């Protein structure tokens, strides 16, 4: 047949932009219902995004606080028994030879006393080098970030508190005497006294700490380090390097351990939050489904009419899918924007509050990341299609003869 031959070629169909335009007009024809449905979706999606952004933001804040600027490729090495497994130069050289190891930075960690303007306090003394200081990711408050000569020292703010020097900048170039006790290779203990010039101040927590050059202790006969910091060539190789070092009998730890624990906790937290937010989402989906189904029931004659005018089953189904997607998209972007806006307001409030209490910097407790936005949009599209499935299938089964006859 002539017509069959014509049909085998791709037939012109209604332009997608016209279907979108009709779908928009259909939705606007029932403004209140559409508005309420969209509000429902905004609340549902907004709730999920808001709660997840809180988890993401808190996760980042916790990571920042715990890991700080430490390299996740660094490994801390200590000995479980300093009489049997020695953390000495021989083993440092062995570790330096391992594959994927780029830096090995040893440090003597000793108990000591400081004398400052006649007063004395206990302290922990780190005899080390600049690589160790660098890998420790210390937070400098004043002065230089490295040691240049053997008589220079970097101290922490806790130490300044102990000696009554509250201002970090004023402590620079102040003189300090440090006495520390080392153990020599024959087991005897020896006191090493150093007169040092404070060149830097760091903020490292509660106890008093002094960082000074390691050469002083090496020259005095100290033969064993308290800790090594080892840097792997990249994050992926950290487990391999750790395995090699542990093979020598040492104990290792890494910021990755902490990260992994934090991630586990926050992953669980995320699921819980999605569960709670999901309740709102399910209600929004049911609202959307209800709107589309009622809309279909109201428009069976319109759909019958479309078919009598030449609409294909697919055209009718696409119209309903587009209506569902329009509801979803508007609700999705509205929800994301609302969650972002509310999060920003709370972030600003928290930052002001924290700053007023002396905590510097901005606080991002809510973080709407691009990935979160992308996943939400994709999820919304999927939901839109699923919700439209039943009404559109039903629309495709409408018999125009039946619906136009039963006026």
């Amino acid at each position: 047949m002539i017509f069959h031959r014509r049909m085998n070629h791709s037939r012109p169909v209604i332009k997608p932009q016209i279907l979108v335009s009709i779908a928009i007009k259909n939705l606007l024809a029932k403004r209140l219902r559409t508005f309420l449905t969209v509000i429902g979706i905004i609340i549902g999606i907004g709730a999920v995004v808001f709660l997840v952004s809180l988890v993401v933001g808190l996760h980042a804040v916790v990571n920042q606080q715990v890991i700080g600027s430490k390299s996740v490729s660094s490994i801390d090495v200590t000995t479980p028994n300093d009489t049997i497994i020695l953390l000495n130069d021989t083993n440092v050289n062995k570790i330096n030879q391992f594959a994927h190891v780029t830096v090995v930075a040893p440090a003597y960690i000793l108990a000591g006393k400081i004398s400052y303007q006649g007063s004395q306090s206990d302290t922990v003394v780190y005899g080390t080098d600049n690589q160790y200081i660098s890998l420790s990711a210390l937070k400098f408050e004043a002065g230089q970030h490295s040691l240049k000569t053997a008589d220079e020292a970097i101290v922490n703010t806790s130490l300044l508190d102990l000696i009554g020097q509250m201002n970090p900048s004023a402590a620079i170039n102040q003189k300090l005497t440090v006495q520390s006790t080392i153990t020599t290779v024959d087991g005897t203990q020896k006191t090493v006294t150093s007169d040092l010039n404070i060149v830097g101040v760091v903020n490292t927590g509660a106890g008093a700490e002094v960082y000074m050059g390691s050469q002083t202790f090496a020259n005095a006969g100290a033969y064993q380090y308290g800790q090594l910091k080892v840097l792997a060539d990249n994050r992926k190789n950290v487990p391999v390097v750790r395995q090699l070092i542990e093979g020598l009998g040492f104990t290792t730890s890494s910021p990755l351990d902490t990260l992994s624990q934090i991630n586990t906790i926050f992953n669980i937290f995320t699921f819980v939050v999605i569960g709670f937010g999901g309740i709102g989402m399910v209600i929004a989906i049911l609202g959307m489904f209800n709107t589309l189904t009622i809309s279909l029931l109201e428009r069976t004659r319109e759909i019958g009419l479309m078919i009598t005018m030449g609409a294909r089953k697919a055209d009718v189904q696409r119209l309903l899918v587009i209506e569902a997607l329009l509801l979803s998209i508007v609700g999705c972007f509205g929800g994301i924007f609302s969650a972002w806006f509310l999060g920003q307001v709370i972030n600003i409030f928290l930052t002001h509050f924290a700053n007023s209490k002396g905590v510097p910097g901005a606080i991002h407790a809510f973080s709407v990341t691009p990935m979160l936005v992308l996943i939400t949009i994709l999820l919304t599209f999927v939901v839109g299609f699923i919700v439209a499935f039943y009404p559109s299938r039903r629309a495709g089964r409408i018999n125009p003869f039946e619906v136009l006859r039963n006026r």
Partner: protein
Amino acid sequence: MKNILPESSTKQNQAYPKKDSKPLISVTDLNKQFNLKSGQIEVLHDINFSIPEESFTIIFGPSGSGKSTILNVLSGLEQPTQGRVIIDGQDLYGLDADQRAYFRAHTIGIVHQDNYWMNSLNVLENVAMPLYLAGSPRESALAVALDSLRRVGMDSYKNYLPTVLSGGQQQRVSMARALVATPKLILADEPTGDLDSKNGQMIMDLLLYFQRELKRTIVLVTHNLEYLPLSDNQLYILDGKIMAAQRNQKQLITMANTLSAQIAALSKMEDEAQK
């Protein structure tokens, strides 16, 4: 009920003789049954006829006679139980539903007794809808739709919602919509049924204009015998059967009136007998 038809009005009159034009519609051995809970009901029985191109045909008969069902079968909306419907050389029910929809969009314009609209669209876009569905771009579809509205004198109402128009105005817009895709065939199902005589006459004038000036083939279903003289051909349907098919209106009207009167009398007699 006994058969009151004269022998001469049955088999040999069921198809039009081809006069001077090739047939646009050819219906052969058409039967239609509806399945109801109470059983099957036969609404069309052994229907055979053909309709020439560019003609004006009226299908008439009393309510429930099956004339609207014939129209729905011709429009491709109601699959017959048996028989073939050839329109413009195409076996209509040899096509699947989507192919029929496409065929309908290009070949058939339908005017319903009741006015059905896309309620969210204005008059112009409602009229453009068949063109949209046939794949026309928006601007050209709207331009053609405006032309079509102009033909029925409704272009000044293009931005109105159709539902705010009067019955007669809606019917004129409906005819503009039926005409917009330049279909060869226009099927009209009692388009004057809900209108007063003035608006009814206006619609009939438009149908005649479509046939005579625009060279369309018109098939009109009505129970109003006043319109018979306007048509070229007539089909008289009673109880799902073609009782008469004529080109001579006067003879047909007389026969239809006689038959209707006989049926009414017979029904009355049967009712009284039952009492």
